[in-house]
């Protein structure tokens, strides 16, 4: 019932992008992904370790999901670029969720380095989806250097605070020529619905599902919430009024 959308030249029906980290176990990850209906799932790139999981994430998810590698944890342009190039080699995809962390406390991006790294990676042939602040000017700059989407944060990663500044998200959506994917901060279903109502094209969620008491139920909730918010955005909501307006007819009351 919700329309499909284009991301980096591919068409998707689900507007929910799922993170894969922090699930209690692998089965819950798989069940939650299924319940979410997501087409795209994120991955991180880390040094291999001999004790590492027997099964590789590629084998686990590579067939069923478009994997979106990230550069989580990188704090310099150099590390982000190399991590991106290793990700492309390892996952055989030029898609990249570019993260360039500027502060370990808030995990907020360093937007100055982010724009620089995005420009380098776009020139290197990547489809860059940058995790950025909710700054409309930074988002415009990222589009100018060739990013295929922007991923503004709603609140600090994993905080579950929802969308701290709906005004900025709405401004970004109103002016963006590329898809806007709300990333980070979602805590529950109404947050995801709100993101879509503000005009986002998709929502990226990890902790809110992985760390919920029942990840599979929450994944189902998020799937419905994203559809609900998307439909509501296009249905043309009633304006907010400071006063009441009766729904039932006002004439024909008995005794009147």
């Amino acid at each position, binding site marked *: 019932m919700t329309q499909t959308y284009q991301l980096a030249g591919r068409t998707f029906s689900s507007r929910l992008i799922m*993170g*894969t*980290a*922090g*699930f209690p176990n692998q089965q819950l*990850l798989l069940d939650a992904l299924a319940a979410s209906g997501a087409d795209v799932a*994120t*991955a*991180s*790139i*880390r*040094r*291999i370790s*001999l004790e*590492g*999981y027997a099964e*590789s*994430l*590629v*084998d686990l998810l*590579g067939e069923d999901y478009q*994997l979106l*590698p*990230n550069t*989580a944890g990188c704090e310099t342009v*150099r590390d982000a670029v*190399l991590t991106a*190039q*290793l*990700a*492309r*080699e*390892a*996952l055989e995809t030029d898609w990249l969720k570019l993260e360039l962390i500027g502060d370990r406390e808030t995990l907020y991006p360093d937007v100055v380095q982010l724009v620089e790294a995005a420009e380098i990676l776009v020139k290197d042939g990547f489809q860059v989806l940058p995790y950025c602040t909710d700054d409309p000017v930074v988002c415009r700059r990222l589009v100018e250097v060739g990013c295929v989407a922007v991923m503004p944060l709603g609140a600090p*990663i994993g905080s579950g605070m929802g969308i701290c500044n709906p005004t900025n998200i709405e401004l970004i959506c109103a002016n963006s020529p590329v898809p806007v994917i709300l990333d980070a901060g979602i805590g529950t279903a109404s947050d995801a619905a709100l993101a879509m109502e503000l005009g986002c094209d998709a929502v990226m969620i*990890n*902790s809110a599902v992985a760390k919920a008491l029942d990840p599979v139920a929450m994944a189902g909730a998020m799937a419905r919430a994203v559809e609900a918010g998307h439909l509501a955005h296009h249905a043309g909501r009633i304006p907010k009024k400071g006063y009441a307006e009766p729904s039932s007819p006002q004439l024909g009351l008995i005794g009147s």
Partner: protein
Amino acid sequence: MRSQITVNGETRPWQAVDVVRLLQAEGLDPARRGVAVAINGAVVPRHRWAETAVQPNDLIEIVKPFAGG
């Protein structure tokens, strides 16, 4: 003193091997999907592993995808 290399931050004695051998020496299956290698900050594509020799003092990164957000 003997030459060394650094693999994922840990030093190893250098040996005259190519990347395929190196992975095997590290106990990894070079045929396995999802593995990527960089030497001194540059990615070595899988199709060039066999022809790429490990040099003394190389800084080598061997990575694979993990769950992530």
